[in-house]
C-alpha cells in the first residue's frame, strides 16, 4: 500500500515538478527559493497524498507555492528593500534585454499582483482558479491583474516598446 502510494506520487511529481518550478521561478525571480518552494509544496502534497491523489494535487501544490511566497514576501518587505537589477544596455542581446526588463517589471509588483499575472498569463488559469490559488474573490483577481498590468506598462515602457518591435519583426 505504502509502496504503491509512493510510486504513484513519484510518477505525478516527476511529471509536474518542472511546471511547478517554472511557475515558482516567475513568482519569485529566484531559482533557489523557487526550488525550496516547490520542494515544500511537494512534501505537503505527499503528506496528504491519499486524499489529494484523486482530486487536484497540482492545484493544491500551486496554492501552497503562491501563498507561501506571498507570506514570505510580506515578511521580507518589512526587513529588506531591494532594488530591481541593472538596466539593459543599448546594443545588448534582445532576449537578454527582454528578460532583464521583465524581471524588473515583475520585481516592482506586489507578491499578489505578480502571482495574479503569472497564474493568468503563464499558467493560463481561469479567473476562478486563480482566485482559489490566491485565496481571494474573482473580483479581486480582476482588479489585481488590471492594476498589475497597468503598473508593468507604466513602470517599463521599454518593455512594451521592445515587445512591440519584436512583434513587428515577426
Amino acid at each position, binding site marked *: 500500500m505504502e509502496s504503491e502510494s*509512493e510510486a504513484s506520487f513519484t510518477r505525478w511529481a516527476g511529471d509536474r515538478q518542472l511546471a511547478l518550478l517554472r511557475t515558482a521561478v516567475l513568482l519569485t525571480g529566484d531559482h533557489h527559493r523557487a526550488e525550496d518552494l516547490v520542494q515544500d509544496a511537494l512534501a505537503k502534497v505527499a*503528506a496528504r497524498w491519499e486524499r489529494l491523489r484523486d482530486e487536484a494535487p497540482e492545484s493544491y501544490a500551486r496554492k501552497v507555492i503562491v501563498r507561501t511566497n506571498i507570506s514570505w514576501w*510580506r515578511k521580507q518587505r518589512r526587513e529588506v528593500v531591494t532594488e530591481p537589477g541593472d538596466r539593459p544596455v543599448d546594443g545588448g542581446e534582445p532576449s537578454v534585454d527582454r*528578460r532583464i526588463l521583465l524581471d524588473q517589471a515583475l520585481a516592482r509588483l506586489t507578491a499578489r499582483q505578480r502571482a495574479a499575472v503569472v497564474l493568468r498569463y503563464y499558467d493560463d488559469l481561469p479567473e476562478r482558479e486563480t482566485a482559489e490559488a490566491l485565496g481571494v*474573490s474573482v473580483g479581486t483577481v480582476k482588479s489585481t491583474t488590471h492594476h498589475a498590468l497597468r503598473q508593468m506598462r507604466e513602470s517599463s515602457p521599454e518593455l512594451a516598446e521592445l*515587445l512591440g518591435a519584436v512583434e513587428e519583426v515577426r
Partner: protein
Amino acid sequence: MTDQMLRDLLEERVSGVAVPDLSAGAWRTGRRARRRTRLAVLGAAAAATAAVTLGGAVLTGTGRTTQPAPPPGGPTLTSAPTPPTAEPDARYEGVPVWWSVGREQEGDLSPVDDSPLPEVIDLRSAPTAERPDRAVAAFAVGDQVRLVDPSGAQLSLSLDRLDDVTKPNGYRYRPVSHSMLSPTGEYLVFPQDDSVEVYTLATGQWRSIDTGDRVTRFVTWVGDDSFVLPGSASGGGDVLDVRGDLVSPGGTQMRSPRLRPGFDTRTAQAFGLTRRSPGGSEAQAWGMGVPVPVADPGKHLAEPEFVAARVGGVTRVLAILWEIHDEGRYLQCCPVAGWLDDRTLVYESRQTDPALVAWTVGSDEFRLVSRIEGSYAVASFAQLWQD
C-alpha cells in the same frame, strides 16, 4: 503590450529552467509529516482527556460528583505546552509584546493546514446544509443565526421565536452573543427575560427552560451540555443542563475569570470570552486604554486593543495594529475565537473584510483560518482544536 506578448515573454523567461528530481525527498518529508500528525493526534487526545478532567474539577468544587473518572491506563498529561522562544517586538511592564499583521495584510496570509473551518465563509450565500448534528461556528446575521458545520456547509436558523432581552436600564437588544454556541457545537442557548431557550442541532428542537427570577443575560456554557446563569457579568450563578436540570445550585459556580496580562488593565475593558485550549493555555481580548507599545507611534493608534495569551504559564500580549486613519477596523475588533492547539490561538478580525486569523503565541507566525464574506453582528465558536 498584448496578452499574447506577455504570455510569450513569460514562457521565454523560464524556458531554460531545469529541475533536479525533487519527488523522492518530498515523499520522505511528507511521510515524516504524516507520522508527526499521527503523534500530534495522540497528544491532543491526551490533552483533551486532561482538559475534561480539569473541567470536571471545577464542577466538583461544588461538592457534586460530576468529575469524570480517569480512564484506566489512559494517557496522562505530564507537562505543560512548551512556550515559544522567539524574541518579542516590544515589552510593556515586563510583558513581551508582539505586533499583529495589518488589517489589509490578513487576506494575504498563508492558510492554516487542516483547518476546522472553510477557507471562505460566505454569509451572503444561500444556506446549503441539511440540518447538521453540530456546528463549528454560529454567526448572527439579521434575525437569523448562520451555523457553519465542519464541512463548511451552512444552515440558517430563524430567531423569530425569541424576544428582545431587557437590561435593568430598560435597553432592549437581540439575545445573540459570543456565548451562544456550546463547546461541542451541538446546542445553542439564548437568554430571554424569564427563561433560556436551547436549540438542539441534531433534532432541530427548541426547549424553553423556565429560569424563574434568575438573571439570564450572562448565560455562558461551562460544559458540553451545561451552562451557568451568573447574576452579573463577573459573578456566579446556578448551573443548569440542556434539559433544564439543576447541576450546581446556590451560586457557587463562578464564570471563568478573565485572563489578565500581568499589568494594570483598569483603563481597559475585556471583551469576548476567555478561551482555553485542551492543555490549559488561555487567551482574552482587551479593548483600548493601556499604553501597550505599537510598531510606529506616528502611524498606529496608541493604547491599542490587545490579546493576552498564557501558554505554558507565561503570559504574552498581541497588540492589534490599527492605522490612525484606517476606518476599516471595528472597535473591539478582535475577540478570541479559540485555539487550534495549545500554542495557536484564533482571533476574529472584525473589519470591512472580516477574517479569522491564527497566531502562534510568542512568534511572528500568522496564518489565515477563514475569510468571512458578508457582515454579521456577533460570532460564537465551538472548540476549534481537532481531537
